[in-house]
């Protein structure tokens, strides 16, 4: 699947998008896998309350299933308007 990062999450991890092959069942499982990779991921995901997630471009929460998902995006709370 494609994993996307926006705003300071993108800056902290150092890339906007990457392909990830995973057997993770939920967003939280995927986060745990990413955090185990490298410090920059661990740092970016250290406070989940400061993050939001979208699965296939729909806002959801960290318990959500990612089975069959094509795209998961992580970003800080939105500041539109």
């Amino acid at each position, binding site marked *: 699947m494609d994993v996307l990062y926006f705003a300071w999450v993108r800056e902290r991890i150092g890339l906007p998008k990457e392909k990830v092959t995973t057997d993770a069942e939920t967003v939280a499982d995927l986060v745990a896998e990413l955090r185990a990779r490298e410090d920059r991921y661990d740092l970016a995901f250290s406070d989940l309350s400061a993050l939001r997630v979208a699965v296939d471009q729909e806002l959801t929460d960290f318990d959500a299933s990612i089975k069959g998902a094509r795209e998961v995006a992580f970003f800080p709370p939105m*500041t539109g308007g």
Partner: protein
Amino acid sequence: MRVVVQEAPFDFGAEAEAFAVGRHDMGAIVTFTGVVRDFGKGGLDAMEIEHYPGMTQKALEAIADEARNRWFLGDVLVIHRYGRMEPGEKIMMVATAAPHRKDAFEAAEYLMDYLKSRAPFWKKEHAATGETSWVAAKDEDEDALTRW
């Protein structure tokens, strides 16, 4: 209903003038415009707005659809820019048309509250000093959603 996500500036006067034209049953039109504000007394060089291409349009359309479900509206317009803007530039606008002003005002407020916290935009401030900082979401913006 029209929802536009674009980098280029928009012509507020022309958009407001063209909005709901021909709808003779609409007695009220409300418009709101968001402007890049330099609250640091000359300290802001530019505002950069990042968004999530693909999701942004859909999210804005869903918010506008919900407004049409909740209020009696003849038309809805949402324009939101992304990219780099200087203080004084218009970031976005919403317009609502309704038979009566209460629906038009409330729907416009609803659109703004949801646009702020549920549309995938992120603002970054570029200070004149060269420093940059992401604008943090405010608790009061999240709280504003609970009244709807």
